[in-house]
């Protein structure tokens, strides 16, 4: 098996940890995630990772999620990871549900 680039390893570890935490106990993700539903499951379809010029990692996730008993919805989420004091932390996070405007 070919060794993955470092940014792929760090990015995919972060993504795995993030959604595992989000789906099990999101209170640990920080106060911004006080979202009004008890149950959520994320399923990752694809994930991409790139190094940035300032030695950060850009990660993009396309997936599906299911909240409570609602129908499955697509989502897109992008993260920017930065190494601060030897730990990789998330400095930017953008989330969108896959909903388009119907004409």
């Amino acid at each position, binding site marked *: 098996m070919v060794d993955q680039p470092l940014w792929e390893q760090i990015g995919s570890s972060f993504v795995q940890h993030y959604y595992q935490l989000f789906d099990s106990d999101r209170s640990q993700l920080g106060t911004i995630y006080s979202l009004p539903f008890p149950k959520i499951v994320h399923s990752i*379809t*694809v994930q*991409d990772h*790139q*190094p*940035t*010029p*300032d030695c*950060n990692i*850009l990660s*993009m996730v*396309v*997936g*599906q999620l299911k909240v409570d008993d609602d129908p499955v919805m*697509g989502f*897109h989420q*992008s993260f*920017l990871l*930065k190494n601060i004091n030897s730990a990789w932390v998330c*400095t*930017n996070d*953008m989330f*969108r549900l*896959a*909903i*388009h*405007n119907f004409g």
Partner: protein
Amino acid sequence: MAAEKEIWQKIGEGFVQEYYNQFDNTNRTTLGDLYSADACLTWEGSSFPGKAAIAGKLASLPFKSIKHIITEQDFQPTVDSCIFIMVFGQLKVFMLKHHACSWVCTNDVFRLGIHNIPA
């Protein structure tokens, strides 16, 4: 009442508008100039490192014409004074960095919003 836009939103919107204008309305041969020399593009999971590879990929996309319809676009400043952009319509993610008095794209990730549908 219109709130004053943040500077990163203005720069970001300007970049996105120019990017899709070149993408949709030209032969895309100058699109590479929007990227820095060592930028990376990930296109549907394949990597294209460097301005030349990116320019080659974008100019060689196998369609006669394309139109992007932007559903939403989000902008954020980063701690390193860059601008992080996510465009949702056809999904595109950019990172812009200030270089030599202009903003260039250093990272670009593209994915179609297609999920696995079980047989």
